[in-house]
């Protein structure tokens, strides 16, 4: 649809925040594609309660900002509520800034950004509230995943918060696994999750497990976006997961 990309230039100099990257842009393109916005508009057709969107790991806030600004274009309704949840406090305040800046000159059809929560994944969200979960995970295979205490300090050797944005542990799947295990709790009855994977995550095997009932139910999975069709190590795709 060619909707403009949110401006995140105010965060350019902050090296503790994951900058908008190929994965972020794939999410924007996928959510605003003709087929996906048609799907969302029919799945969340009015009259029905206002949809609640949660983005886990918003980083710069580019995706949450995009969804908030273009609620009408993506959902066919403007009463869309957005929340962001990040383990990095700089990403929380950065996301709030990005959303605010880009809403300033937004058209009338925008949604409402509620808050950025400083939290591990979705652990402070009440079960069954989230209608749309968007997750661009730390998907790069690494030896380990950084662990933070309640003050956001990392145990052991780490590059700090920025590492949490990309270090995915074994197969790059350790963090994603935790989110997938929590889907049944997190998502509402009409809930939809958009989760990004890279080739090394063995996405076909993951889809097999999701559909095969290993994550609380037989989830329905559709690959709704992809980049780099020629085999490269950064081949990315987005899987839409529904009940």
């Amino acid at each position: 649809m060619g909707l403009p990309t949110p401006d995140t230039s105010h965060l350019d100099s902050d090296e503790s925040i994951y900058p908008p990257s190929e994965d972020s842009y794939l999410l924007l393109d996928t959510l605003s594609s003709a087929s996906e916005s048609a799907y969302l508009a029919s799945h969340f057709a009015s009259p029905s309660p206002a949809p609640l969107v949660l983005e886990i790991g918003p980083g710069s806030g580019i995706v949450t900002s995009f969804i908030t600004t273009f609620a009408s274009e993506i959902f066919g309704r403007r009463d869309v509520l957005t929340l962001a949840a990040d383990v990095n406090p700089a990403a929380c305040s950065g996301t709030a800034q990005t959303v605010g800046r880009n809403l300033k000159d937004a058209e009338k059809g925008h949604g409402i950004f509620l808050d950025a929560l400083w939290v591990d994944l979705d652990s402070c969200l009440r079960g069954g509230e989230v209608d749309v979960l968007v997750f661009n995970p730390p998907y790069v295979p690494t030896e380990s995943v950084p662990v933070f205490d309640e003050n956001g300090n990392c145990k052991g050797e780490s590059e700090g918060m920025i590492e949490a944005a990309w270090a995915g542990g074994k197969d790059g799947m350790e963090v994603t696994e935790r989110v997938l295990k929590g889907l049944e709790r997190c998502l509402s009855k009409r809930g939809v999750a958009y989760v990004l994977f890279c080739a090394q995550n063995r996405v076909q095997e993951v889809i097999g497990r999701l559909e095969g009932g290993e994550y609380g139910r037989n989830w329905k999975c559709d690959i709704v976006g992809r980049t780099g069709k020629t085999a490269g190590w950064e081949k990315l795709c987005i899987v839409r997961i529904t009940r």
Partner: protein
Amino acid sequence: MKLLTANFITCSVKSCQSVTPALSFRDAELAREEIDFSPLFLRNILPRIDWPLLQRTAKELGFPALPETKPELSPIAEGDEEGVGSEEEQKLLKELHSLLLETSVQSGKLVCANCGHEYPISQGIANFLLPNHLV
């Protein structure tokens, strides 16, 4: 943190998530930010509100008492695309708009009545990270 957000969250401690949400604000400093009022928006938010929880939150923060039960709005009339409704409903929706979307807690803490854990809020952002022994 907006008061609507407070209606969607709970204690991060796993064993607290099977009980009724029990987070209470303490030492809260409030802020207000003006947001365009859309009656239709509020009409579609209302069905998702946990009314007893909102009543409690409003009371803790010193707001006037909300109605005993969640208000039931009459269906919007044909041609009323903005969902304006009666004068009485309009007034109620405006009050809810102001409470849920325009009011936020800038600093203070959220305390779980179930496990006692305290979550600090500063510069409008609540910290729900847990110490490692509670994860």
